[in-house]
């Protein structure tokens, strides 16, 4: 697979398959309403059907007959058209997922891969990638395990890769140094290989490799889920989350009031988009469907379309409104617009991506400047068999 193939893949107009739905089954039954012809008796059928206009007309005639047969035979289940609403794709997604079987396990594994664009001395941009994972037990009596890896980087775009090669393809560059945070820009390994996902052996010192990884394990007696962007939840809170939009909305208003009481001055409408983070938490399909329906009804929500996330997975991209900024160097920021990419099969949050809102400051409009993606290993699982191999305890 080369860059050209990657690009063609990225513009796939139908990147995910539709499962066999009721309409598809109706089509199948309508086709089978007629007896198939025997190929031996009609050796030239293929040519006649596919190439001859007269045969094509015959096919159309047959199809029309089948339509009549179908329409008259479907009185038990007449199709019902519902008027299209704004963000209909999200309502459709909720309808598709709400009856999926719920899974469970002793641990909820959450793998996060984060990428942040950073300027390599003003010559080209790199994408610095880090991987973190949490094993959160359902029972707070079990230990919480966290694992993290040292950052690795790759040139941010093909153009950046050219610039990197032109400057001698250094294997290491100064990494991000945040104002008010780390003062020294620690070096990060830089290569043109994949630094995201894949087996550590294939990546050498890349993200998630055994070189430069650490872990911790310990009890968290309160059993608080690590993502507290919406509110503080225990695993039991999440398990009892409402599966009806009206009840969920009421609950979210309560969380908003709590956040206001703690000094976060934002309206409920400003607070609501952050609830997309619930779609990465251990909720069941019906609960996720309720979250999606509530978000679909928000005035600032807009479905962008189907895209591929930074890990190459197809998903539904949604804009919940608002812009932010991204630090590109200690003295340079770029305005970004955030998109959230949902798994079309499960409704789970695949990734949140920040795109440059405009051209300038060394970046082009639409360029990915940051992302936070959920690793495909995420989800319910059993307890980890042993401590992460080759990683140093405590980092």
């Amino acid at each position, binding site marked *: 697979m080369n860059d050209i193939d990657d690009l063609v893949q990225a513009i796939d107009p139908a990147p995910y398959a*539709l499962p066999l739905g*009721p309409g598809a089954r*109706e089509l199948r039954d*309508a086709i089978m309403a007629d007896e198939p*012809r025997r190929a031996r008796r009609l050796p030239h059928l293929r040519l006649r059907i596919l190439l001859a206009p007269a045969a094509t007309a015959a096919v159309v005639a047959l199809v029309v007959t089948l339509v009549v047969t179908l329409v008259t035979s479907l009185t038990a289940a007449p199709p019902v058209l519902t008027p299209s609403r704004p963000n209909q*794709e999200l309502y459709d997604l909720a309808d598709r997922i709400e009856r999926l079987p719920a899974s469970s396990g002793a641990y909820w594994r959450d793998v996060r891969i984060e990428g942040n664009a950073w300027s390599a001395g003003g010559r080209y941009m790199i994408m610095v990638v880090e991987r973190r994972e949490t094993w959160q037990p359902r029972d707070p009596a079990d230990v919480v395990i966290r694992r993290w890896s040292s950052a690795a980087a790759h040139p941010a775009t093909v153009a950046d890769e050219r610039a990197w090669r032109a400057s001698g393809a250094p294997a290491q560059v100064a990494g991000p140094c945040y104002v008010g945070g780390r003062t020294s820009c620690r070096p990060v390994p830089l290569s043109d290989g994949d630094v995201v996902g894949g087996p550590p052996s294939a990546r050498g010192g890349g993200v998630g490799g055994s070189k430069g990884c650490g872990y911790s394990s310990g009890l968290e007696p309160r059993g608080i889920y690590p993502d507290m962007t919406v509110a503080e939840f225990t695993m039991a809170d999440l398990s009892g989350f409402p599966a009806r939009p009206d009840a969920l909305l009421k609950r979210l208003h309560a969380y908003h009031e709590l956040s206001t009481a703690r000094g976060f001055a934002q309206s409920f409408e400003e607070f609501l988009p952050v609830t997309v983070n619930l779609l990465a938490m251990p909720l069941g399909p019906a609960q996720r469907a309720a979250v999606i329906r509530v978000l679909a009804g928000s005035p600032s929500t807009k479905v962008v*379309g189907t895209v591929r996330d930074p890990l190459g997975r197809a998903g539904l991209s949604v804009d919940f409104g608002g812009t932010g900024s991204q630090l590109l160097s200690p003295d340079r920021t770029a305005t970004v617009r955030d998109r959230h990419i949902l798994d079309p099969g499960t409704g789970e949050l695949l990734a949140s991506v920040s795109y440059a809102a405009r051209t300038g400051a060394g970046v082009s409009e639409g*360029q990915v400047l940051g992302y936070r993606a959920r690793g495909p290993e995420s989800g319910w699982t059993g307890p980890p068999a042993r401590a992460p191999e080759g990683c140093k305890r405590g980092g």
Partner: protein
Amino acid sequence: MTQRDRFKAVYDMHYSAIQQYAARRTSSPEDTADVLAETFLVAWRRIGDVPQGDKALLWLYGVARRVLANQQRGASRRAVLTERLRDELAAVRTVTPVELDHVRKAFDELPERDREVLALACWEGLSGEQIAQVMGCTAIAARTRLHRARRRLAALLERQPLTMVMRKA
């Protein structure tokens, strides 16, 4: 296994792949449904000729390709299209991300044969040998066409501004 069982198995196994194939090459749910209906109608009428195993899908791609060629030649038709199927197909509306508009534009500028060989390789994920079966040419010819199509697309993109590639897992 009866003819009905065999067709049902082929349909259920390959519906999603043919739906994607058709959706990628048509501009409306109605056209997608037409291609689906006609492709599987041919499969039903010729169920005895449909190869076993994985080759059935390549055979269906070949039929769908010809159905599309007929459709694009202007033979207008509206096939078995229930509201339910229309709704299902319409639910998967897709948009090329704005940051990749230039790639889509370059891709659309390619000759049809280049687009098809690239699509079969990158969207359907077929090997050179499988592409040859769908397109009715030799494996060497398919690989050569693919190589040339990649080169032509790269040349078109070279004339465009910044090209970004998202890294894959």
